[in-house]
């Protein structure tokens, strides 16, 4: 099943011709419209017309999340706000988040790639799609929503949380497709079991899951416990949101929608492009984005590309399920967490530079975050009440900053291991 067979199954040669044409156009566009890119391209000694083949993409400079942050809020937009119909904001590190803007055309293209994604996952116009990704500034909910509407499915825009209601609507409305984070899918599966709901009474058949790393083992568990076929989807707001890549029914790598995005794998240290089959950092260039095109955007996600033919008939290259991160970003219950955010929350509580350690673990199906904080002289109180109050204050600060609940554990000074004087910040015990 394809949503757009001519494009999804386009012969490679024809696809690459289309990519080259679009790449030349987008580079010219950002050169003229975005001062940031013009300066960067000029500094790299780049001239318009230098893109003669697709391989010339290697000559373009990279774009990073920091560049987006430096140009907060709208400095990277290539069109005036009068052309922007929507903005989304990604959970960022300390300080300013990153903002992306969509034109009417971008929303159409995003709906298109999400329509392909949903179709890849098994949805059709007859499907009833329960979108349990969060709606709002996060791209997950609205991305899945627009794609599902585009294919003509019936959408239940329930957003995340409220598990009881999720189950009620799933039963009463006969949901056939579930879209959410994989950890929430497991949580729902547990809730189904706890409620004593017989799986055979549910109409659920397909699941499209993304926005956080998950393993094959987790896939098997979701498939078994919910009685569905589970598909991995990939995206990030800086590139478009969900809909950058999706697994097909073969469940063997995610097809990158190459008529819209060019993927590359680079060595994260040297920036050198790596051939297919080699592991490195994923980089994307958008080919059709109007509001905020990105040139060689470094995702910090680790993956590899596979160019072998896929049995599904799609000609688009496949990326391996994301295998990790090149930076210290953690994804906990779908929330992006940088240790520096924890640090700033601690600073607000304690006034002094705290030593802390994040321990992430997966208990059952849910990610748990424990934050160990070394007690400083300033924080210390001879009253247990005072120390418990401190724990509660830190917990509250983290919750309001990240929207994530964490267990706070006060520990003795110097008890957190340091390597070469620098504290180790993160221990990720999750076996994903």
């Amino acid at each position, binding site marked *: 099943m394809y949503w757009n067979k001519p494009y999804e199954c386009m012969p490679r040669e024809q696809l690459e011709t289309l990519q080259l044409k679009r790449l030349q156009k987008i580079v010219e566009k950002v050169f003229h419209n975005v001062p940031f890119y013009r300066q960067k391209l000029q500094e790299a000694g780049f001239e318009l017309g230098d893109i003669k083949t697709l391989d010339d993409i290697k000559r373009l400079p990279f774009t990073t999340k920091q560049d987006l942050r430096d140009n907060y809020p709208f400095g990277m937009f290539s069109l005036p706000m009068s052309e922007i119909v929507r903005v989304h904001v990604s959970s960022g590190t300390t300080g300013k988040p990153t903002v992306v803007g969509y034109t009417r055309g971008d929303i159409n293209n995003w709906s298109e790639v999400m329509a392909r994604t949903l179709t890849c996952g098994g949805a059709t116009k007859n499907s009833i799609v329960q979108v349990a990704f969060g709606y709002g500034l996060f791209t997950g909910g609205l991305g899945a929503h627009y794609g599902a509407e585009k294919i003509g499915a019936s959408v239940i825009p329930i957003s995340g949380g409220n598990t009881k209601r999720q189950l009620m609507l799933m039963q009463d409305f006969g949901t056939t497709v579930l879209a959410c984070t994989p950890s929430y899918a497991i949580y729902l599966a547990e809730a189904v079991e706890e409620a004593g709901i017989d799986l055979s009474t549910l109409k659920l058949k397909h699941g499209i899951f993304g926005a956080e790393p998950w393993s094959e083992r987790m896939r098997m568990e979701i498939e078994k416990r919910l009685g569905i076929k589970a598909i991995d989807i990939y995206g990030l707001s800086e590139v478009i949101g969900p809909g950058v890549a999706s697994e097909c029914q073969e469940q063997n790598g995610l097809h990158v929608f190459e008529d819209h995005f060019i993927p590359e794998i680079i060595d994260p240290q040297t920036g050198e492009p790596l051939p297919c089959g080699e592991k490195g950092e994923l980089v994307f260039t958008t080919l059709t984005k109007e509001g905020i095109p990105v040139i060689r955007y470094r995702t910090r996600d680790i993956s590899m590309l596979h160019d072998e033919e896929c049995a599904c008939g799609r000609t688009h290259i496949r990326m391996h399920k994301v295998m990790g991160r090149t930076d210290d970003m953690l994804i906990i219950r779908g929330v992006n967490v940088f240790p520096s955010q924890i640090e700033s929350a601690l600073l607000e509580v304690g006034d002094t530079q705290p030593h802390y350690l994040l321990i992430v673990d997966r208990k059952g199906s849910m990610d748990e975050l424990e934050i160990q904080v070394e*007690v*400083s*002289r300033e*924080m*210390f*109180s*001879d*009253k*247990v009440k005072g*120390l*418990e109050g401190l724990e509660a204050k830190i917990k509250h600060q983290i919750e309001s900053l990240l929207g994530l609940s964490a267990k706070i*554990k*006060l*520990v*003795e*000074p*110097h*008890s957190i291991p340091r390597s070469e004087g620098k504290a180790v910040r993160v221990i990720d015990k999750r076996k994903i």
Partner: protein
Amino acid sequence: MVKQISLFLENKKGRLAHVCRVLGDAGINIRALSLADTADFGVLRLIVDDPAKTNKVLSENGFVASITDVMAIQVPDVPGGLADALEKMDKAGLDVEYMYAFIGTASQDALVIIRVDSIEGAVEIMEGCGINVLKEEQVYSL
């Protein structure tokens, strides 16, 4: 006012022994102690013969410690002796944060360390109630 040393301890095997060894090696004699604990951590409170030195030794050994003013009171070592004293304090509006008993004794009386919410004027109030509050030096040299 009696200086109490408080320090933070993780609820981990061997920590209490470690701190006692550190103090012992420094020649510090513990006069009274109490340990308040939660699942994860504890606060050890000490009355010692030399608070300033203790604070220094603990800091040098990487502990987080602080000095708090507390009162050492003398109560008759008979049934109801402590109850009488506490009732008097209650009537006088003194709120006890925590308290613990002394290891040694002074003559026939028991000694109790009391931490009140606001120490300001507390000694006078106590004495006004007829409770004997010990001087700093008396306590350290017991």
